């Protein structure tokens, strides 16, 4: 499956996304900048476990959000950060252990083998850990995903308010 956005392109292989099945994600950011990563849906964030945040979007959307975060180089230190956009609107993509809606996903990578997985973050309860860093937020502001006032409220624990 190919997903084409602006000048970049995201390719997934295989094109059926199942829990615990690795998917190769190839993102062509520019002709000389191609990123290849392996993503695997973690069933712990889809099994209704009340102690873990849960995705409320489909498997394919989860993998696409990861592809989007790679494509937009939304990375700080060891994490990629993603959102689900519908046009200009940022949609909820999961719920937190506090049963609050979440619009931000964090993706982390296991060391060996190098496989990514992700989950919705709890930026209301854990704003000190669960908010993207400044570089990512600036990028998202430039893309029109988040406003300055939304950034201030997000990092201050007031949530992502529309």
């Amino acid at each position, binding site marked *: 499956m190919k997903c084409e956005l602006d000048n970049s392109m995201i390719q997934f292989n295989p094109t059926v996304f199942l829990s615990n099945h690795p998917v190769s994600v190839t993102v062509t950011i520019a002709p000389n900048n191609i990123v290849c990563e392996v993503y695997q849906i973690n069933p712990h964030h889809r099994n209704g476990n009340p102690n873990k945040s849960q995705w409320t979007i489909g498997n394919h959307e989860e993998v696409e959000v990861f592809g989007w975060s790679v494509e937009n180089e939304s990375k700080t230190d060891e994490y990629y950060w993603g959102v689900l956009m519908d046009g200009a609107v940022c949609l909820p993509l999961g719920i937190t252990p*506090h049963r*609050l809606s979440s619009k931000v996903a964090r993706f982390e990578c296991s060391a060996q083998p190098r496989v990514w997985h992700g989950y919705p973050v709890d930026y*209301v*309860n*854990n*704003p*000190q*850990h669960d*908010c993207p*860093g*400044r570089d990512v*937020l600036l990028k998202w*502001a430039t893309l029109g995903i988040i*406003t*300055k*006032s*939304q*950034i*201030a*409220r997000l*990092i*201050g*624990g*007031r*949530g992502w*308010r529309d």
Partner: protein
Amino acid sequence: MERLSIIGDFFDCQLYGGRLYLWTFNGSLQVYNYKAIIREWVRMYHGGLTSHCVLYENGESHMSIGPEMLQRCLLYERDYLANEFPTGTEVLSSGLYESNAKGLFTCKVPLFSRHINQAPVEKLSDIPLVYVSGAQRRGLACAAGSDGLFWLQSVSKRGELVQISNQQTIKANFCSPGIYADSSVGESYLLVKDDGRYDSIIRATELYPRACGSQITWCWDDNFFMAEDHMLKVYKFISSVRPMNLEGEIQFFYWKGDFVSAGSSQCGTVVELDNAVCLFEDWAKEEGHTTIMGPVTRWRMYPRSKEFSSHVHIIFDERLDIVVMNDNVMRWSEMRRVGAW
């Protein structure tokens, strides 16, 4: 209420020692001579300089200071103390403080410099923080989200941050009885200081009648405020063993949205909602109330300021507004003190 707009892309602000500290969205910290800005405002006000007015969406117009005029009041400029958006800022005589997801940072505040300043930055703690507020003799109260509330006892002697609560906390301020802390997922609470320690905790449900834990609460001096369901209620604190007296209630229009944050000082109360900021000079009077269209990035009051305690700073997308909560104080008292007339 009188208003002055400073045009620019700001993220946070502080006022201390006659200086205005502005954190810009692009990562710099600019320090301005605030008294010079106010003098310029007075000059425009009395000169009737309408060319310096900005027209806002709601039809109001206010005087403004543009980048060129602002540049003349610039004392110095530097980068953020750490390359993260500050979640909290504070300025005390001991230094400038910034909290963020990487910890707590400080640097000295030079008194006389017109040059780019790069005073060395000291990292006081690795604990990720979402808010910091301080008082010279009471230290720093540091909210750490789900990691709780921490206290730096002395800003002059430094030392380690001490955890004084494990309750989820996103904001904490010193008040008469101790430290009042706000939570985004649980109850707010009051930590009462006793024998130099914050051991005694009073939860919001014990403080406020009919509190359910989902509202915004805050306090100033011995006044305690609760905002929920588009209603603000003001209580008077008597003692930790007696129920508080309800002093007044104010209803908010639904279009203003849900409550986001609030604070009070001796000059009034600021209530931030999703779509507006409301300022109350006197909550008991209908006319002592101003609504400013939002949303806003940040607002600050300066109850510890000797000369500008009635000034409120509100940061919008493209400007910072200085709002004076009491016009008479602005014209006849504070302007005179800064030598405006």
